[in-house]
């Protein structure tokens, strides 16, 4: 029963891997297939494999896939146009032939009666597997450990980046910032904090300058480019309204005398 529910889901998900454009969607569909497989293992009297499938395959391996996808470029999507002539047709034809051949061949063979694992699993599935693993298959086990070590070392070697230039230490970073300020007038020092007169500390709301104007450099350029910056003076008005309702005297902008980095505009604008 479980099988007949899960089997169509798995097949559809697998077909989906073929057809989706974005690679991340393909990874998620693969996760669906793997989890369904884990359930099938459980149905087939393999509880240990059910757990290992989820933990190792879906949890580790698929996550690894997703990490690399992020590194490589999550936007990367295949174009629909096929570059090699006849490849798609041949692949579909070949796949159909292979599938048909395998299915026909398998359905024509009599597999015999199902013995079942009740005897083999008599002392518990994990115990039985451990028995086999450390007696009959111990050599394969040892070799596999060597394989794992090799894989780890290989991955480290491949992913290692050689530093081609010296690492930028703090004095070098400071010198670089001063130079950029001298050459291009880039802002020296950190970006402005919300400031004493800030009325809120949201990322997408500009900080207020002493004269009540929003400081553009306090909002991320990305948000500004997206146009999702909220109006700081409007929000300040809302806060004043709330304070009035609470009976607290709204703090306005101090009169006269600003800091030296005011823009020299002496017009006083009091926003109430």
């Amino acid at each position, binding site marked *: 029963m479980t*099988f007949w529910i899960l*089997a169509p889901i*798995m*097949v559809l998900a697998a077909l989906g*891997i*073929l057809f989706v454009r974005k*690679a991340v969607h*393909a990874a998620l569909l693969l996760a669906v297939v793997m989890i369904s*497989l884990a359930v*099938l*293992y459980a149905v*087939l*009297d*393999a509880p240990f*494999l059910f757990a*290992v499938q989820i933990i*190792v*395959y879906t949890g*580790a*391996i698929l996550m*690894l896939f997703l990490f*690399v996808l992020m*590194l*490589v*470029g999550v936007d990367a*999507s*295949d174009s629909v146009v*096929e*570059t*090699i002539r006849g*490849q798609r047709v041949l*692949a579909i034809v*070949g*796949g159909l032939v*292979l*599938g048909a051949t395998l*299915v026909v061949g*398998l359905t024509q063979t009599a*597999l015999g009666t*199902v*013995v079942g*694992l009740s*005897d*083999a*699993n008599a002392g518990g*599935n994990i115990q039985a*597997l451990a028995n*086999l693993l450390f007696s009959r*298959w111990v050599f*394969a086990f040892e070799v*596999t450990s060597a*394989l*794992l070590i*090799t*894989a780890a070392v*290989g*991955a480290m070697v*491949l*992913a290692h*980046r050689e530093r081609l230039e010296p690492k930028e230490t703090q004095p070098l970073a400071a010198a670089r910032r001063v130079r950029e300020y001298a050459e291009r007038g880039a802002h020296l020092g950190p970006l402005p904090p919300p400031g004493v007169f800030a009325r809120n500390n949201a990322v997408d709301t500009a900080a207020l300058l002493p004269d009540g104007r929003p400081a553009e450099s306090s909002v991320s350029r990305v948000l500004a480019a997206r146009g999702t910056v909220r109006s700081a003076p409007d929000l300040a008005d809302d806060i004043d309204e709330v304070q009035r309702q609470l009976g607290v005297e709204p703090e306005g902008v101090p009169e006269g005398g600003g800091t030296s980095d005011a823009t020299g505009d002496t017009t006083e604008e009091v926003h109430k």
Partner: protein
Amino acid sequence: MTEYVVLSAILFTIGCVGVLTRRNAIVVFMCVELMLNACNLALVSFAKLHGNLDGQIAAFFVMVVAAAEVVVGLAIIMTIFRTRRSASVDDASLLKY
């Protein structure tokens, strides 16, 4: 029991077609993982058929080896990506006439 093996065959075929059709190297790798999983399903089904656990042991080892393979393969893809800035399988096409 036949239905499990038939399902395994179908998944394997789909994985094959995926390897041949997709151009993103990582998606191709995913299709290879799909094929390996299909084989695992067949192994476990036959373990139940024959009544001994050798099939499950084999599936276990397949998983281990697949893990190692994924590690190394993805490291390679990343290295290639660093220099070429592209993850398309069609980029490596110099071994030709």
